[in-house]
């Protein structure tokens, strides 16, 4: 690795052309000078523009995502990527669609990691911790090594939510695991072979269905609607011609972008 050309040596620099957003007919092509850097995708060296995300760099290098590239927006967990840097023993991770390439990084994408999901009839659960313990008894193989938290590309404290499930605090586990995107990297690193992300999903479901208080006002509201609370307003709107309707829509009062908790519209005629 040390024999590779050093990053930033001017001889290695290339021009990466990117058409401007307007298209060729409207504006001249914008030229941006971008440094090329070496990265290693599954062990093979490629020169890629330094500004790209890992996902775009892989496409630049010739890989095609026929299917399974995921959302490209950092929320679906399909492009989890593991990488290392020269001279550093640590394992790094990131989402390929969100993480910008670094010189000399060795990477591979890990779109999926097998982890068994317990079969349960959700409606038969009551929200007791023991039910989760029975569905995932491997929970108690956790030795608190923390490899799961260290590898999480979303910085979820995975070990802490597993610890919370073990002590029966499903609400805390649900809150700690909230940012999980189910990429499965935690499961890939677990010496206790736990399927953390499935356990997290189960406790969040339980929290939503059984531990969080029901919104009592919702039933009242549904009853009000069924009793015809908005009928008059809706009938009025339905009877308007298109122009009037458009005007009302365009002139409607909008909630300001930075409104306080106590903001209310001037007219609550149809609320």
């Amino acid at each position, binding site marked *: 690795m040390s024999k590779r050309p050093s990053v930033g040596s001017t001889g290695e620099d290339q021009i990466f052309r990117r058409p401007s957003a307007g298209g060729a007919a409207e504006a001249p092509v914008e030229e941006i000078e971008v440094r090329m850097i070496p990265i290693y995708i599954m062990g093979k060296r490629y020169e890629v523009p330094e500004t790209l995300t890992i996902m775009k760099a892989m496409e630049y290098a010739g890989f095609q995502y026929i299917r399974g590239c995921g959302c490209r927006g950092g929320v679906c967990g399909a492009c989890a990527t593991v990488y290392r840097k020269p001279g550093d023993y640590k394992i790094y991770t990131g989402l390929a669609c969100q993480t910008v390439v670094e010189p000399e990084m060795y990477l591979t994408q890990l779109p999926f990691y097998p982890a068994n999901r317990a079969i349960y009839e959700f409606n038969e659960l009551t929200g007791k911790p023991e039910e989760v313990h029975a569905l995932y008894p491997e929970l108690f193989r*956790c*030795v608190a*090594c923390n490899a799961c*938290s260290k590898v999480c590309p979303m910085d979820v404290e995975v070990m802490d939510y597993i*610890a919370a499930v*073990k*002590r029966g605090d499903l609400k805390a586990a649900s809150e700690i695991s909230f940012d999980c995107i189910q990429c499965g990297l935690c499961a890939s690193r677990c010496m206790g072979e736990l399927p953390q992300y499935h356990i997290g999903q189960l406790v969040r479901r339980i929290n939503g269905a059984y531990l969080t208080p029901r919104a009592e006002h919702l039933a009242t509201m549904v009853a009000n609607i069924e009793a015809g609370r908005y009928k008059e307003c809706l009938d009025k709107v339905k009877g308007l011609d298109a122009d009037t309707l458009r005007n009302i829509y365009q002139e409607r009062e909008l909630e300001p972008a930075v409104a306080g908790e106590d903001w209310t519209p001037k007219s609550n005629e149809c609320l």
Partner: protein
Amino acid sequence: MKLGYYPGCTLKTKAKNLEDSALASLEVLGIEATELERWNCCGAVYSLADDDLIHIVAPVRDLIRAQQQGYDTVITLCSMCYNTLARANELMKNDEEKRNTLNDFMDEEPDYFGDVKVVHFLNFLEDEVGWDKVKEAVKVPLNGLKVAPYYGCTLLRPKEVGIDHPDNPVMFHKFLNALGAEAVDFDSATECCSAYQSLAHPDIALKVSYDILQDATNKGADALALACPLCDYNLGRKQGKMLEMFESANEVPIYYFTHLMAVAFGVPIDRNHFELNRESSVELLKLKNLLSEVPA
């Protein structure tokens, strides 16, 4: 002293009665012990293999958390948590090579040198509160209640972390006396309850537990007090099975030591969560008129 409270997993579910009765009693004594904001399972069993360091990671991580949160002392209630945390702490204090290995492994945490003090609730009562102050807080003396103090293994062994002499402990006795109860000596006080053998060899384990209870009642005890959820499982919850298995078996009321303290301190009964005990625990207290005297 800044006191952090380490509950342990079981005290949050199956042994809620141990936790709540203790916290209620601490309130009476005016002692503030804040639960660690962040903690994980202690590991439950301290590994007997000398080079099995991975199982020391969990308790050491808890001690690091305590230190990070600014506590110099951690108080525990569960015997097993106490044993695991205290032994891991001793190792971090005294074994430089293993300490380095563990600190290197946990490279995401600050290095730890065993600086947090791990104390069991009973130690804390003796050393920091004092039996006289405990006596002063008693509103309902447990007069006429003969209790066998059961230490089991992990409060006493190994002696480096034992809360008292490994063979002739007296701390539990002093505790019971301070509450007005009579401590009944019995040989099995420091025997093993059969621990996890109740899973692998349930019949043998049941006999071991039964012998302990027999010993206590033969010496005249009305009840047995203990400090460990696993001992409670073997000596308390398994009594139904024991009554089926052994003709001469009698129901023996079981208490966490903190139950007795909460009762003597006049803490409202719901804080004791006696619903997690067999019915005999409450029945004996009623029989001895110890619950009716609780001021409203």
